[in-house]
Structure formats: C-alpha cells, structure tokens
C-alpha cells in the first residue's frame, strides 16, 4: 500500500482573544486519537514549535486590524491548501470591529500615551475580505464539537455538518420554552446561525447572536418585533453590535436604527 503523507494542520492567530484556539486545545483527547493521521505543524497556544509549510489545513483565528497582518494573511493563504476561518473575529471582524463604526484615531489618542507608536487600520475586517476562504466556522467562541466536525470532514473528504439555519431549530428540538414568546425577552435566535445548541434560551436569556447571521436572516422583521416588545432604536443598535456587529446583515440593521436614533435627536432639538 502507498504510504500516505500525514496532512499538516496549522493554526494561525490574528487579532483575537485566543478563545477559539482554546477550543482546539480542549479537543486534546480527540486529537490524540488521530495523532497518527495528522501532524500539528503550527499551533501557538499549544507549542512554539513551527513546522515548515505548506500546510494542508490551516485554521485561522482572528481578524485583520493592522497593516502587518494585512500582509501576513496573504502569506498564510499562500502556504495553505485548505483555509478555514474559525470564530466571529475571523468570519466577521469580531468585537473589535466595533471600532468600524467610530473614528479609530480618536480612540488611539484617548487610550495611548504615545499614539504615534500605534499602527492600526481603520477597520477590523474578516479574513474573507482579504483572501479566499474555503470554509467559515462561526461562533464566539466556536463550538468544540463543530471544530472537530470540520477537521473530521476535511480528513474524510465530506461536507461538514454545520447547518446554517436558525438557533430556534435547536432551541425547539431541546424543548426550551421560547423566551421571546413566553417572557417577552428579545432574542436574536431567529436570525442567528445554529451551532451553540441554543444555550442562552435554555437559561432563560435571549440569544446574543454569537454565531452571526443565519441563512436568509430577516433582521428587519425581528427588529420591528423588538420595538413592539418595548426596545428603543438605541437598544436595537446595541443588541446587534456585538461579536458579529460587522457581519453584513447585522451591520445594515444596526446602522438603520442608528440613523433613526440620530433623526429622533435632531427632531427633538
């Protein structure tokens, strides 16, 4: 039998909190089981050892926020055969994309004693804005089981089972009582990508949208319902400005409500 070369797995970090890498670290038992089938070539959270590329499977965590990273992501892309972005930072720009709605220079001058040392971009952007991405795994942080599913699918050449439908699907399968309907709590579940197992509603809280927009998200209709439940335009802006604030459907909706906030202010002047 032909000896098959072990595929090399690499993990890359950009602007992020390392939480998604920790999910991978959390998979140690499962990964040990496949140690013979896969070589971990680069994984900064686990080891400083770096094996030379090219890499068969690259997992990219974090968003692009600096001129340096803007260049580095192209190097990673060139060295990777299959590139998967993991987590809200890499797929949507992350919580740090809140800067995208403001003037970043102003922040820098307030926060740092020597703003001249800071080299940063105006916007925090997802990896897919810069290079071709082969698969996006959502979540803040990603779900460990879904990460294993992606690696598994890669190893066996199948499509990963990470449905793009709403959080409500899993919420209802679990038998959780809907917090929107039964308590009047605004919940992003109906426009949010499944993947977490609908944890928040099962603790009587609305979904925070950690997994970003689902397929066909009707943000407009849900936001209108939030208003009916008593949310102000400002509340709606805040609910949508989270880890996935820069994801297109969430961004559009929050900006629409921000406009309304401004308009109301102007009118009351």
């Amino acid at each position, binding site marked *: 039998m032909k000896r098959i070369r072990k595929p090399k797995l690499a993990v890359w970090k950009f602007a992020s909190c390392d939480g998604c890498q920790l999910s991978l670290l959390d998979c140690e038992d*499962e*990964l040990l*089981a*496949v140690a013979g*089938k896969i070589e971990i070539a680069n994984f900064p959270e686990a080891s400083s050892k770096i094996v030379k590329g090219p890499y068969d499977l690259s997992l990219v965590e974090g968003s692009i926020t600096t001129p340096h990273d803007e260049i580095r992501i192209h190097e990673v892309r060139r060295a990777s055969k299959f590139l998967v972005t993991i987590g809200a930072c890499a797929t949507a720009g992350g919580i740090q994309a809140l800067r995208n709605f403001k003037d970043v220079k102003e922040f820098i001058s307030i926060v740092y004693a020597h703003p001249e040392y800071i080299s940063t971009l105006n916007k925090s952007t997802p990896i897919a804005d810069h290079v071709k991405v082969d698969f996006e795994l959502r979540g803040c942080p990603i779900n460990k089981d879904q990460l*294993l*599913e992606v*690696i*598994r699918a890669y*190893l*066996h050449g*199948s499509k990963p*089972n990470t*449905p*793009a*439908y*709403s959080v*409500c*699907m899993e919420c*209802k*399968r*679990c*038998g*959780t*009582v*809907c917090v*929107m*309907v*039964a*308590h*009047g709590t605004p*919940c992003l*579940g*109906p*426009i949010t990508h499944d993947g977490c197992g609908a944890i928040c509603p099962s603790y*009587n809280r609305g979904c925070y949208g950690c997994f970003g927009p689902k*397929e*066909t*998200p*009707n943000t*407009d*209709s*849900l936001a*209108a*319902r939030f208003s009916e439940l008593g949310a102000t335009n400002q509340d709606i802006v805040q609910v949508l400005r989270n880890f996935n604030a820069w994801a297109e459907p969430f961004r559009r909706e929050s900006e629409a409500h921000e406009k309304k906030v401004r308009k109301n202010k102007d009118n009351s002047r």
Partner: protein
Amino acid sequence: MPEHSILQRAHFEQLLGALKTRGYRVIGPTVRDGAIVYDDLNSTDDLPVGWTDEQEGGTYRLKRRGDAALFGYVVGPHSWKRFLHPPAVRLWQANRTGKNIQIEEEKHAAPKMAFLGVRACELHAISIQDKVFLGGSFVDPLYKARREGAFLVAVNCGQAGNTCFCASMNAGPKADFGFDLALTEIIEGSEHYFLAEAGTPLGEEILQELEHRPAENIEVEKAGSIHEKTAQQMGRTVDTTGIKDLLYANMEHPRWDDVASRCLACSNCTMVCPTCFCTTVEDVTDLKGDHAERWQKWDSCFTADFSYIHGGSVRSSTKSRYRQWMTHKLASWIDQFGSSGCVGCGRCITWCPVAIDLTEEVRVIRATDIRTKSMAKETDDGNTGTNPR
C-alpha cells in the same frame, strides 16, 4: 355498565397510581420556565394546579386562575409528537475494525407511555401522524412501537384560547375518538370532579380500578354545556370552504410577498406544529473514521437545506417556503393524506416570534382571491385581468 362515571378530584392520584403500577411512564402538563410543557409526572402535584395560559399571536403568558383546576389551560409549546416522534433519534451505528465494517441496528425500546391531558385537537393530530407514519406502504417502526405502547387520557378543554380554532377544523374541542379515557373537569363551588368516559377496554379496566360512581344525567349535561361553551370561545376561525382550490388558485397572490417580508424563516411554526413530521438525517463520524452514527432529526421546510437538490435550493425565497408550508398544511395535505394537516391548535400563531397568523393569511387571500379579482376587473373595464404571474 354506565357510559359515564364520576371521578372525584380527591381520588385523581389513583389514576396516576394505576398507570404507574402497569409500568407506564406518565407524561403530562407541568409548569416550567413560564409555560405549561409536557414532561414526566410523579404525582398530581406536578400538574399546573391553578394555572392557566393567555395566548395571542407571538405571546404566551401564564396566569393564576381563581380555582385549583388541574387542566385549566389550553395547549403549550410542546405537543405529543415530542414523545411519539422524538426530535432526535439515532437510527444505526457502524464500526470499522481493519477492513471490516459492522452495522449495528438500533434497538429501539418500546416505552410504555401514558399521556395525561391530551386535547381533542391533539388526538386529531396524533391520528394524522398515524396516517403519515403507519398508513402508507412504509411504516416507521419507531413511531409504531411508541404509538402502540401509548395510553391516552384525553381531557376536554374547559376553555378555548385566543389562538384556538379547532372548531373550524372539526378537530375539537370535545374528544370524540382515539382515547383510552376521556375526562371533563368540573369545578362548582367546593365540588371538584371529573366526568370520565372509557374509549377502549383497557381504559375501562383502569377506570374500574379507581374509586368512582356512575354519573347522573345532570352531570353529563353539565359537561356537555362546558364543551359547548368552549366551542363558542374560539379566538380564531378559518373558513375552510373550498380551501384547497382557493390556495391552489392563489399561488401567485401578492400576499405571499407580504408575509415573506414579516416571516423570519425561523421554523418555529413547524417545530411546534403537532402534525409537521419532516426529518433530516445527519451522519456523524469520529475523527478516526472508525465509528459512524446516523441520526434522524426534526427538520423544517423553512430551511434552505430542506429543498436542496443538486445545484441548489428549490425554495430559495422565504416567500416560497411560507407558501409551501401553508399550502401543504391546508390544501395539498388533503390530496396527500385525505384530510387537512391543520387541527386548529393555534401553536403556530402563538409561538411565531413575529406573530404571523395563518388564519389571517387565509382570510386575506380569500377576501382578495385572484380569481374573483380578475373577474371583477373583467366586468369593471371590460378587459380580462392581467395575469398576475
């Protein structure tokens, strides 16, 4: 043998006892997280004693009643399909050792379940799912085993909710078939009892084990007037006259665009529907590829994957998905299974996060029926109506 018996509230616990003695897992209504859900019952204390539910489109609230009724609510977010057709089931597993692959068939235990508090609309829903899973040439063995082991205690509704319309769908409010035992709860001053009726020999046998007495005519009449009053209380109605042709003829009605602008395609309506039966299969494999499992999970016609065939989703728009769901439920179901797929329980209205109401959608489509509209146009200006397509 009298047709109806009286079972005192004080002796109600005996019913649970009799069922448990026979090895039944007793499942019924209980309060959890602000709603009445179906779960295991240890004793009558677990029932929603003194609670009721107030429902509207997209809204459900528990309220205290002025009495200690055990079944003084309507229906909650759960239905019995959760137990007869569970949300996730493993169908089989496979193990690989070397070049050998061994398929392990799933041994589905046939649980003996007793459902306490089954509403008339739910009996109808179960009989509809019976047709789906047991009626055709392919029988679902899992459903069959669960269904055959089930003991059904129906409780007639003493009140209807704001989103109820079972009377329109000829599916209630009185249970008239498909139960082992049927109860009507009667509370009058300090009196609190149930009018009981057996529907099967097993129901009769269990009834005989409980302390009871034959019912007086007046008590039977009292129950009858409760059923009548409930039928008058329906919060919603649907005119089902020619509904199949109505919906078939209105596939291109502009109302579908309107509902699509509101619909979240979140699938809640299909998940809470007691007759929606669609599932998907998911294969899970371990990293090594030595172990695989196939799971069956509730699916919904509101997802993109549901209609995915080679090249893409057939129903890519929310409009096409909502239209598919409602038209299937109220029209093509009749062609497929010989009855409507809707029992008028109102769950899809209450549990829709944005309060979309299919009774309202039907009403609007009927009032602005494309057929009559184009006819009206014809008489108005002598022209034939433009093809809405």
